[in-house]
């Protein structure tokens, strides 16, 4: 059946294509214009919610309550000063930054070690480790939330930033290892062999030969690790207190406590979303590489 429909056409196909060549070019123009309009609509559907969020964060409560949505108004920084200075969000932002940066650094370092060993060495247990890593990548935070809460309380890690860093390193390692493996595999082995001849040990090779060559992979992995640490919510919610809270947790607690102060809430949301928006425009290519890692070759 499959072949039929193609071969059936193959007889008359060429003729009709020649006949149709004139009207086709104008319909192709229309097709192209239609696609551009479609593209524009899509872009709007994706931009408008984000723009609404950001615009609202610069509005006063009165401007927000107005009927309809005002696109033009006198902007105010009131929501930001209120959120950052009075609600203590400066502290939560610092917490988020510390947790994000430290866990990203540690994840890349020990994830890099592990990926290097998994690509270049043959050792007993290698298969188990790489398969186990892939499986662990799928574990939902909700499965971990109860036992982690119990264990972290027991070990005195609850309510500390260190406790958050440890769990985020664990959550991010599988993905990081997965991404870095594909980058390390592309490094030509000859470079390492030459380094061995020069008398380099494995650690020196890792730091001086491998790391500089997989910078794009490190960048992609870093962005994704930082993103998880910066955005993660449910574990941070149960593992932090008033002092060690991260931004997403503080935002939701504020949201549920006060209800509908949309000016303040959108200001917090904008602050939480800001790094993601910046990264998106700076490093779209690396992000796409990270998103498609493992799923698509090439």
């Amino acid at each position, binding site marked *: 059946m499959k072949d039929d429909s193609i071969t059936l056409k193959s007889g008359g196909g060429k003729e009709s294509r020649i006949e149709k060549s004139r009207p086709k070019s104008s319909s192709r123009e229309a097709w192209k214009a239609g696609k551009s309009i479609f593209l524009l609509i899509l872009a709007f559907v994706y931009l408008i919610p984000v723009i609404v969020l950001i615009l609202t964060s610069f509005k006063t409560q009165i401007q927000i309550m107005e009927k309809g949505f005002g696109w033009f108004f006198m902007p105010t920084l009131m929501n930001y000063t209120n959120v950052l200075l009075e609600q203590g969000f400066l502290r939560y932002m610092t917490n988020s930054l510390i947790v994000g940066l430290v866990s990203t650094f540690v994840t890349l370092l020990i994830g890099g070690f592990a990926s290097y060993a998994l690509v270049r060495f043959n050792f007993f247990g290698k298969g188990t480790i790489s398969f186990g890593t892939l499986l662990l990548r799928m574990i939902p935070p909700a499965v971990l939330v109860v036992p982690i809460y119990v264990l972290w309380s027991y070990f005195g890690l609850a309510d500390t930033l260190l406790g958050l860093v*440890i769990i985020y390193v664990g959550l991010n390692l599988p993905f990081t290892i997965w991404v870095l493996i594909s980058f390390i595999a592309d490094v030509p082995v000859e470079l390492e062999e030459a380094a061995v001849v020069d008398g380099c040990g494995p650690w020196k090779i890792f730091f001086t030969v491998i790391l500089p060559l997989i910078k794009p992979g490190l960048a992609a992995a870093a962005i994704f690790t930082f993103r998880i640490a910066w955005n993660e919510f449910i574990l941070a919610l149960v593992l932090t207190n008033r002092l060690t809270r991260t931004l997403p947790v503080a935002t939701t607690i504020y949201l549920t406590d006060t209800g509908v102060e949309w000016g303040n809430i959108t200001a917090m949301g904008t602050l939480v979303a800001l790094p993601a928006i910046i990264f998106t425009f700076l490093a779209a290519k690396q992000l796409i590489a990270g998103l498609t890692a493992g799923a698509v070759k090439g």
Partner: protein
Amino acid sequence: MGNKGLFRGITPYLFVAPAVLVLAFTCLYPVIKGFELSFYDWSLGTPIESRKYIGWENFAWAWHDPALFNSIKVTLIFTAFAVAAELFLGLLIAFLLEKGIRGIVLLRTVFIIPIMIAPVVVGLLWRYLFDANFGLINYIVALFGFEPKAWLGTPGLALPAVIITDIWQWTPFMFILFLAGLQSLPKDPVEAAQVDGATTWQVIRQVKIPLLAPVIWVAVLLRIIDAFRSLEVMFIMTFGGPGRETEVLSLNIYKTAFMSQRLGLAAVNSIFLLAFILLLSIAFLMIARPALSKK
């Protein structure tokens, strides 16, 4: 893996040890601990000594727990509708925009934003858009002459609202994977079909989609797994309400542990979630592994 003999002995183990230790401590150990917890009756906030071993009682309770089965049902409905729509829209957009169109780079960039921003922000953004009084959606609905609605508080409307939010957030993921997949397809079969006079639709149906199948499977399974994990958006938009209409399994676990304060029962519910994820992951690995190992 050309130089397998380069370094032997203990060196490889030193390289993998830190990662293995952290993974064991943060993922493996808690999962095992979760199994142990499921045999205890233990209230949140009471000391560990006060927990009571009750055997399979938590499991027996869970088996007749309408809240648990409701949350499994909600998770399945949410996942089925959201992922199906994302698959359809993702394919549609990828095929429409496959051939170099001006602005595609910008669109791809804009498209990543919903994936990158915190789910918490996505949740509060759409809670605002769906807001009964100030929301943009009621504003648009009113323009077309319809009654404004309290979307997130009305039975029958809240779950669709949450699903729409997920579709908005994750269709770009499908699109990006499919576009990358399309761009790395071998040129020959497509050209051969075109020479044979196949229409665009025939090329898509009979050549491109079969060639793209592995990527489609990977994307769908990754999304299903992710949909089972998602909880922030519901947490913020509805907190599972109205009633338990949008209470997915992940949210049920959180509520059982930290609102009802029943840690043991929450551990049992976690095992259900883990079982679902495990099945899906094995399916995923069976499909994705061949693609991974061919280097």
